[in-house]
């Protein structure tokens, strides 16, 4: 039986700005099962980030239910939500959000600091392993400003992996990167997905969405279309096919 990681029904989210109510999400139903690599697509302002933030328990829906790994999130307190994020979720942001003047290793360790059951030794070992998984074991002691944008994003991905979450949520994770580096990040996500990681990936670039297994299209706070990706591309192959000197 397939395990439902994310199960959302009639989800609504309103923002009240002054006298105006913005219906960012109108009535969204979505199920994501274990091992899926879902791209959330849509034009600017269609509600993608709002959706992802709710999936990430960073924001609460106005209405509707959300089950994360079988847990009804709406019943949880702030502290329980923090614990849920710590144990079950991994985030990757468009702007990396690494702590400045803090080594890659320490950045990756950070989530485990908030988990009392992980001892310092294990924390270090797991952070090293996560950096290894993103191919940055030789950059462990570099500061963010000593890393390229792509490398910084890989550190951020390592950070999202280190607590072994049930799902990784990424919002425009390739938005700040050039094409080649974007493909490298996508290749990394594809590898992680191949190993069974569930990933939800917000993007408005169809090319990027082509590397995922399913695309969900948003418009004006509604899902207007869903489709499985039939001829899924391999980001690794695309990179290899790219001429070396073309770097943009």
């Amino acid at each position, binding site marked *: 039986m397939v395990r439902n990681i994310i199960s959302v029904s009639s989800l609504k989210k309103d923002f009240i700005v002054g006298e105006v109510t913005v219906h960012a999400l109108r009535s969204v139903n979505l199920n994501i099962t274990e091992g899926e690599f879902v791209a959330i697509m849509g034009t600017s302002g269609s509600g993608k980030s709002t959706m992802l933030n709710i999936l990430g328990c*960073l924001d609460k829906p106005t209405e509707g239910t959300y089950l994360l790994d079988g847990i009804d999130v709406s019943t949880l307190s702030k502290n329980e939500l923090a614990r849920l994020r710590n144990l079950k979720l991994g985030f990757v942001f468009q702007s990396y*959000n690494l702590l400045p003047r803090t080594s890659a290793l320490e950045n990756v360790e*950070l989530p485990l600091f908030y988990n009392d059951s992980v001892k310092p030794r294990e924390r270090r070992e797991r952070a090293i392993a996560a950096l290894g998984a993103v191919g940055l074991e030789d950059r462990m002691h570099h500061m963010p400003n000593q890393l390229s944008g792509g490398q910084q994003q890989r550190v951020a991905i390592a950070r999202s992996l280190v607590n072994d979450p049930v799902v990784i949520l990424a919002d425009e994770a390739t938005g700040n990167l050039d094409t080649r580096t974007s493909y490298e990040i996508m290749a990394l996500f594809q590898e992680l997905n191949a190993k069974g990681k569930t990933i939800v990936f917000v993007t408005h670039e169809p090319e990027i969405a082509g590397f995922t297994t399913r695309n969900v299209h948003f418009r004006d706070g509604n899902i207007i279309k869903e489709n499985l990706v039939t001829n899924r591309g391999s980001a690794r192959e695309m990179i290899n096919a790219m001429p070396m000197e073309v770097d943009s």
Partner: protein
Amino acid sequence: MNITNLSKIALNALLRNKFRAFLTMLGIIIGVASVIAMLAIGEGSKKSIQDQISSMGSNLVMVMPGTQMMGGVQQGNASSKALDIKDVKAIRQDCPSVSAVSPEVRGGGQVVAGGNNWPTTFYGGDVNYLDIKKVEVKAGRMFTEQEVASAAKVCLIGQTVADNLFGNEVDPVGQTIRFKNIPVRVIGLLEEKGENTFGMDQDDLLIGPYTTVQKRILAVTHINAILSSAVSEDATTQAVAEITTAMRASHKLSEGEDDDFQIRTQAELVSTFSSISDILTTLLGAISAISLLVGGIGIMNIMYVSVTERTREIGLRMSIGGRGLDILMQFLIESILLSVIGGIIGILLGVTASAVIGNLTGWPIAVMPLAIIMSFLVCTAIGIFFGWYPARKAAGLNPIDALRFE
């Protein structure tokens, strides 16, 4: 999350901004250092005054001619009744709480020996004068009762006078000096006492029999003061009462009349000066405390700026599982660390500064352990107090709002 992890996180956050952390601490450092140094200086000067005064004999009771009121007009010392030897005898007879009494007569003048001369004061007393004043004889001897009875022209010489008249080579004992042209033989050298707290040289004097000073030198019959010792320090109050009675009888004062003399005790002097320096210490301490407060506000300011500046960091920490309490604790620990580390540096600096000031000025500097403990506690309190508000602000943020903060 446990305290060790939080402390590590807070310390890392501070280390990421070492220079700013240092600047923030500077206020606390200066505040604490000045509190400690000021209190040490204040306490030191108080101790020195107390030591000086009690080195003159803590059970000393002094009788001096008083000022008289005539129709509400202060007449000054001139019109008051002079003291004389009769009063000394009265005290000696009628005051069981007094163990020793001596008259004191004094006069200033030029003292000459060989080619050297020096202005000084000649004090006259009884044979027990040195005991009452707590002065020792370094060389030679004290004058005798016979010498007092015969108004012998002998004296003991203070170190300052001896140095100025004889230099280092000549032993002053046995020499003859001339005070106001009267030849006086030096029979003893006094032990050095140095300067007192008020900068007065206590070795710039001659001491001889009071009869000699009265008859041979000043040609007066009165005495300037009566020095007496109470049997013990605790007995001074009793001694004062007895002396008052004896003096009133001796001066034949009737019931309603005011005293025409004044009685000063050493204990009184100590407490007067102690309270003056207490006020000074409090004042200095208060000024320093204000600078400490300003330092605390500096911490609060930086923590506030820091919370705003690090809003995205806070958002990130929340997104990876930091609870509001964790964020609160992190910022609180940061501000406590700032103030406590600043406090420790301030304590070290304050103690060092006290020692240096003590060395330069020669004041006895007494660093009070209480001041150190207090400043440490105050620093922690400042950290908690001024860190609490910004920390609360940080903890109350919504994860998503914090993350989206520009």
